């Protein structure tokens, strides 16, 4: 986790230095805070997340002729969250004490990092700017070593799209409300099963309701506030 934070910090500082070398008014940085709502098929519970985004406004804008003042850029986005698995989507485990057995649902808190590239297109409406984004990237799930008994990480591709509204507070500070869809691919819910290290109970097979149908391509939602910083102002 510390290595990860250091890496992200390095990217951020690198981006800051890069900004110094680029033209002003072409670059923006964002800090995201929000809530990630997972598809029920993932067996992950909703969780807050934090993230960073950086985008570079391209001098060439395909929308420029159609919409005056529109922008088009490419950027990077990364976010981190620590969701908890819903133990009731996995088998229950049994703890036997003489003639009494306790049944437990087993959850684990994972670390989820989603990172990728995205294209952002926006149009101005007064002091606000409506924008849409689409991109691709990867999601990495770092399992709880105490639950799965080893260091385990799963990284798979994902696609993203979404949009938001940005309001310029000052010439170089903005605030956005953003919604984004993260469409996972090659997702395996069973990989999140933390009951492996315990004795799964096979006696009361309906101790829990049937789990939600799983999917290899779950659709997750992110709702966030983005604090945007535009070096040099715009």
């Amino acid at each position, binding site marked *: 986790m510390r290595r990860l934070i250091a890496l992200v910090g390095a990217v951020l500082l690198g981006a800051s230095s890069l900004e110094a070398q680029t033209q002003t008014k072409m670059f923006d940085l964002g800090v995201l805070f929000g809530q990630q709502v997972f598809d029920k098929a993932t067996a992950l519970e909703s969780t807050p997340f*934090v993230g960073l985004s950086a985008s570079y406004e391209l001098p060439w804008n395909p929308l420029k002729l159609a919409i005056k003042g529109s922008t088009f850029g490419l950027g990077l986005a990364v976010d981190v969250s*620590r969701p*908890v698995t819903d133990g009731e989507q996995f088998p229950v485990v049994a703890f036997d004490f003489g*003639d009494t057995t306790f049944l437990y*649902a087993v959850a684990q*808190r994972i670390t989820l990092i989603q990172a990728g590239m995205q294209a952002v297109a926006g149009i101005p409406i007064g002091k606000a700017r409506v924008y849409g984004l689409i991109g691709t990237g990867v999601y990495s799930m770092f399992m709880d070593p105490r*639950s799965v008994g080893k260091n385990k990480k799963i990284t798979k591709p994902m696609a993203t799209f979404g949009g938001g509204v940005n309001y310029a507070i000052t010439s170089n500070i903005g605030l956005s409300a953003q919604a984004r869809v993260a469409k996972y691919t090659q997702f395996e819910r069973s990989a999140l099963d933390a009951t492996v290290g315990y004795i799964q109970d096979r006696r009361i097979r309906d101790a829990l309701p049937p789990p939600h149908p799983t999917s290899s391509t779950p659709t997750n939602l992110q709702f966030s506030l983005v*604090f945007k910083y535009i070096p040099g102002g715009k």
Partner: protein
Amino acid sequence: MRSSHLTLVAAVGAAFVLAACQTDPISGPSKIVGEPMLDMVFGPAGNSAFPVISGQRITAATARDTIEFSVSSLPPTGAGVTYQIVLVDTATGTTTAPSSRIIRTVRGRRPVNRDSSVATARVDTSTAAQFSIADTATTLTIRIANTAIPNFTHVLLRASGEGSVPATIGSGRTGFLQFRYRTGTTYAVQSSVFGSFALATANRLPFSVSAFVVNANFWGDQIRLSVRNMIRPPAGFRYAAWLVDERTGTATRVGGILSPVPENQPLDDADLGTGKWYTSVGIIEAQVRGDMKALNVKPQDYSFLTLALEPYGGTATPTRPGTSYVLSATVPNSVASRSATPGKVFGSVTSSTPGRSVLNTTVYLQGINMTVPGQVGSASATGTWQFRAVPTGMYKLYAIPFGDAVIRDSATVTVGSRMVNNVLTGDSLFVTLRIP
């Protein structure tokens, strides 16, 4: 560095510190599911007695031959269910349901005093081709005197849940208890076999206790029982779980077997039915689910849970489980410990004859559905008597004067319970018994 840069770096730093410092109090087995399971060791029942035929003999006579045999340990029948007496010829499959002499003996035992008891027997005789059973302690002596006896080979008992007796039986199974009495042209009585009968020996399925028990437990308000690889019940029979209290004889039917979760469909046709849960000889997997709230039972009021055989059909299920216990388990300590501490039943014996001594009047206590006494005592010179430890439940009290052999008075008592100093305590009851 400009202040706006510092603001950005501070915001990023705060966000990542927040994410990194999130604690993990809910990793692991942190959420308990349902009530604790109170497990039972469920296995072959040690106190079972399956239906058996004994004393079979055949008497040849010029006018007509006679077959006589005794049947015991037949499970009680529900309303509308009878056992049919059938003669079968295995060569042709033809059958007949001969009218038979049925001598019914219900045996019991009651004390004379604290040190001795007498066996009791109630006998009645009837003539019929079928009969029902109400009491587990019933033995039947059946006498078939019929000119058709030489035309058949086997005596077969069927349960009427299978339907009326057919004129011929095919290759399928039918009946639950049989013995051969004729081979070729010679009478030769053989031992009886409990299990499904068929014309071909290879198709018959003698019953034996076999099952792999997955679990048996009390789980909240539910009783759960799961078994695998259980032999099919004899034709006309099904499996049903019962809670039984050996102290009072109280028994409550929990329910029949069902297909596994999540199907939960009745497997009452496990004797002869077809389906994905059956093989030719067994039941692959089954379960019993009992809702104690719906049944209005408290598990601590019972001493064991059993999976027993019972005849199906009729308009109602049997009121007693009989003794065909296939599997059983003692109620676990974790459940039994919820019982109230035993109560006390005490009282006096009075005589309506002035000057008559009540000393040594035998007083005994018997569970309301039991056929044998539970506790026996005798009255003092002043007529007092007591039973110090009586588990909660319903009982009958009887009084037999000293030197007498006849019950002269009886009373029904129910030992309930109440909280005394936060301890569930059995009631103390005073009862007066009167003798002549």
